[in-house]
Structure formats: C-alpha cells, structure tokens
C-alpha cells in the first residue's frame, strides 16, 4: 500500500518522465546510462542499494541525476531515494581522488598507533582525513574496521589492503 501512495506522489510531484526530459545532449545521455545500470535491479531484494553500488562502480560516484531515475524505476519519491543514499557511508556524491586511501581508525588499530599514523599521513599529504586535494589526485578517508585487526594498523590504498601499515607503506602505494 505504501508503495502505491509514494508512487502516486512521485508521479504527481516530479514531472520528470524519462522520455520527456527537457535537458539535452549530455544530460540525456547520462539519464539513459543511469537507467540502463539501475533497471536490472528493480524487483531484486534490496535492489535500490545494489543499484547504487552498481552506479558507483561504473561512475565512481552517484550523480544528482540518479535521484529521478532511481525514484521512477523503484516507485519511490526522490526524497526516499536520497534518504537511502545519504544513510550509507559508502555512497559518495563526488568522485574520489585518483588515489583513494582509507585508514582504519577503530580501536584495534588505535592500540598500535593509528592516531599517530593518521597525523603522519595528514602531514605528509597536507590533507585532513576526509578531504580530497584540489587537483583531485588523492582522497584520504577514515574507515571503521577492515577486519585485519590481528595485523593492525590496517589501510586500503586504491582497493588493495595493507596490514601492519605505516605512512611509508601507504605512500609507496599511492601513485604520483
């Protein structure tokens, strides 16, 4: 029942049927692309979240246009879709830097110096945790546990796991 109500709201309020899109060229191509990525997940269990993973895997982030497309396909309001996206730390609205470093800041890593490791990285790269540099070459982010607690501190550089990490080990893996 709830789905039907939200679908009605959606249709009534947004006035953005996909085929009648007034934006031209690139924007339209993006909408179509998003539609193609998202559509296979409709009807899957938890499909909206899996679809957002798929978009991010393809584009590196979730563009604003994802809202109307996903809302339309999943029969939800844009607000509902936005609510889901904003809940989860994995989803980003901007591409990460060309290099993406995630440093574990949870207890196990704290016990072997992750606080000092974060400070060392921040100084080395002149970036604060959570920031991307202006040239978009590097993003450093905190992560809460990578499951490598027996060999802490842990980090992940461009998708590759690093255990017993230190600033040198991480910097080596960051491509200049």
């Amino acid at each position, binding site marked *: 029942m709830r789905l039907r109500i939200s679908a009605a709201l959606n249709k009534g309020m947004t006035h953005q049927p996909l085929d009648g899109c007034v934006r031209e060229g690139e924007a339209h191509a993006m909408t179509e692309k998003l539609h193609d990525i998202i559509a296979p997940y409709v009807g899957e269990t938890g499909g909206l979240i899996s679809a957002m993973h798929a978009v991010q895997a393809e584009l590196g982030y979730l563009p604003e246009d994802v809202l109307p497309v996903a809302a339309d396909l999943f029969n939800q309001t844009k607000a509902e879709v936005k609510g889901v996206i904003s809940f*989860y730390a994995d989803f980003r609205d901007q591409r990460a830097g060309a290099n993406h470093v995630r440093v574990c800041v*949870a207890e*196990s890593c704290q016990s072997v110096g992750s606080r000092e490791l974060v400070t060392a990285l921040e100084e080395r790269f002149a970036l604060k945790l959570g920031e991307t540099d202006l040239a978009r070459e590097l993003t450093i982010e905190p992560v809460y546990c990578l499951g490598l*607690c*027996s060999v802490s501190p842990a980090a992940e550089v461009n998708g590759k796991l690093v255990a017993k990490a230190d600033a040198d080990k991480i910097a080596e893996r960051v491509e200049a």
Partner: protein
Amino acid sequence: MIKIYVPLDSAAIALGADEVAEAILSEAQKRDASVQLVRNGSRGMHWLEPLVEVEQEGKRIGFANVDEGDVSSLFEAGFLTKADHQSCIGEVDAHPFLAKQERLTFARCGIIDPLDIDAYQEHGGLVGLKRAIELNREEIVGDVMLSGLRGRGGAGFPAGIKCKTVSEAEADQKYIVCNADEGDSGTFADRMIMEGDPFCLIEGMAIAGLGVGATKGYIYLRSEYPVALKVLNQAIEIARENNLLGDNVLGSNRAFDLDVFVGAGAYICGEETSLLESLEGKRGQVRAKPPLPALEGLFGKPTLVHNVISLCSVPIILAKGGEYYADYGMGKSKGTLAFQLAGNIAQGGLVEKAFGLSLRTLIEDFGGGTRSGRPFRAVQIGGPLGAYLPEDLLDLPMDYETLAEHGAGVGHGGLVVFDDQVNLREQAHYAFEFCAEESCGKCTPCRVGAVRGTEVMERIAKGEDWAQNMVLLDDLCELMVDGSLCAMGGMTPIPVMSAKKHFPDDFEPDQAARAAE
C-alpha cells in the same frame, strides 16, 4: 607434483600473499619444478602471514612471513622437499598455537582449498546436511536446542529457541538471514571462515532452512570484505551445480537457495532489525521490538537472523549430535568460541577453544603478550560496545555469565589488547564519537546522547567543571542504557563506564588536562 599452499585470506593478502603466490609460480616455472599452488584460507596464525605451506611426506611444513623477495631463496634452500630455511616453522599442525586449540567450527579453515567441494567432503563436510535431510523439522531444531548453542554475534541468545520460534511460525514464506556485517573492531572470525570455508556457511544455512521451513536465504555481507564476497559468490555457484542449493537439495525434494547482499558501510546494520531494513533496500534504521524478526522479519515474514559463526556451528552439531557439541564449554556457555586476538598483541590471530579458559591464557599463552613489548594495560572484549578490563581481571574465565557479572560481555569473542601507552579517557571519548558517527538516528538517547557524550568528554579532558561533568557522564550513560532502542545506544556506555571504573586515574583532572595539552 608438490602441493604449495598460499592463503587467500585478506590478512595474508594485506601482507603480500598474492605477490608471493605469483612469485612462487614464476620461480617454479623458471626452475622447471612441478608444483600445484592451492590458495587456502588462513590457519589463523596471522602474525606469521603470509604463511606458505609445502606438503612434504604427508605433512604440511610451514614457512612464515614470506615476502616475494624471499621466494628465490626458498627454492635455493630446497623448500619443496626440505624444511631448512630460516623462515621454516616446522609442521604447521604441531605448532603450539594450533595444537592447543579445539577446532570444531574452524576445523577445515586454512586446511582445504575453500572452493574444492570434494576436499570439503573429505574433511567432514556435508555430513550434517545429509543427516538433516533424514530428520524432520522438530528433530533438527531439537539438536540445535540440545547443543546449547548461543548466538555468536554478541547477544548470546539461545539459538535453539530462536530456531523453534521461526519453525513453529505459520507463513507462506520464511527466510534465513545470515548477519555477516562484522563491523566490530577486533573481530574477523566471520571474514576468515567466509574466505576459508564458505561451504560450511552454506551448509549451515541450508540445514537451518530445512529446520525452520525456509526456502530462501540471504547473506548480508559488509562491503569492506571484497575477498569474502568473491569467495562466497564462487562457492554459491559451485553449491548450486552440486545440488547443495536449489529446488532439490541433495535429492531431498526440499528447496533452499541463497544470495549474497552487500551492505554499504553502515555499522548499525549489524543490528538485526536495521539489517533487515537495509536488506529491503531502505535506510538501515532500527525497528522497535516486538514484533520479533523470528515472527515478523524480512518483508514481514518469519526470519531466522543469525551470525555467521552461529550458522557455521550448525553443520558439526548436526553431524555429531547436539550432545557432542554441548560437551565442550562450561555452565550455560556450551561449545567453543572463536576468540580473536587483536590490537597490540604479539601473536594476533584466531583461537577456537571451549568456553571457560581465562583471558590471561588467551592474551599471554596464545597471544604472547603485547606486540610492543610494553606492559599490558587494558583489553576491550567484544567490540566497540564492549568493556575495557584491567590486568587484575585477566583471570576471569571466558563465559557469558561470569563476564556479565563483571559488567562485561563475551560478545563476538574479539579481544583488543592495549599496552601502557593507552589513555582510557581517550578511548571513552572515542566510544561516544563512534556512536555519534554510526547511530541510525531513530531514537533520541542514542542520536543526541552520543553527541552530548563527546562534549562532556571534551570538558573532562580540559578539566572544565570537572566534578560536575563526571556526574553528568554517569547520568548520561544511565539514560542511554535505559532509553535507547537498541544495543548501539544502550551499550555505548559500557566501554565508557568500564574505562571510568577500572582506570579512574586517566580521568583525573590534572592528568586529563596534561594529556589535553
């Protein structure tokens, strides 16, 4: 053909196992050596990773901390047939860290190729599922009941009772949901078994499906575990090809199938109702209980939500009977627990033992003390919502009841060790920060309490109205315990209050102000 084992476990990969495996293959080719490379799970001796094993005369000889640069010297020393290289640790099974364990759930982990279904059966796999097929639902649930198994995710709720509730619920569709959102720092047992013995989880879920009358299962896997995802997906495909999953499970005329669902970086989704919301594609906001998920779970249907290790314990319980499993352990804590030695520990890894051994045995005998070599100061048990305990409580036996009497919990069995460099006020502060970061926001005590908590801790650190803020801290914790909807807000006070109780010096104004400078 000589068999060489190089783990595919994340901890090994993070220390260079992939590069080592590649180097071994190319070196073997160069030297025309006939080798078969097996990517096994980890044995759980993570401080020795990458741990390369070579099968020599029926024994597996280990070479520890192998770096890709060591590979040619290993070949030079004749490691395919001889055990004399500086990195050699002798027969792996005889290593005291492993020899002293009681591996029931982790019996195969690190030993077999995780995706070799024949090896799985040769090592005792599928016996439980085959027996379950011969039994009716009451008998399967009865065995789990008899085993005394309690939820291994942290809460320790009797698994048999949960199974019985779901089994007896009337519905056109029921679900098995495996909680693989292992977000607690200091825990990695779920990851290890999913990477090292995925068929064990699949078999456990299939048995649970037969036991409660569910035909569909989901593994809710955290996104931080890409290796586990890859292994699980491959294992599920193989399981389908071999009729472990599908419309006719091992010819039983009963259906059970499962899929992996990947979470999106929210710690709270380890809470079962939040997990169910997320699995429905929504914000992972906690639901009020009742109704229990056992009666109204996924899409409102009866759902058995269990942790990975709970479900992985089911195959051996069915294979050997509930009594066999219940013979391990003490009091109301039956069976074994996969203790995880983490943090500042010399020998980090996984120790599966019957309940009842002491923290000291785990940390000193198995763990070898702190990694830094400095004096031990504190251990946090059971993840970010677990208590910090001091040295004089290390002789407590690890079982649910004893720890509960001391305001702590076994939780998931993860132990994070700290040396004397730790400041417990900082750890208490972090507990609030973590709660503020990860709270789902549904209930006020957690959403607002966590933020107020960080503010109070900041004032205590600066020595600002110190005495009043210490009282305020007690008040806030009491409110969060009593008023929060789930364990996130309800248990955040545990690390805070245990730190304050056992390490009061760290909260003293002088030292606190000094530390803040």
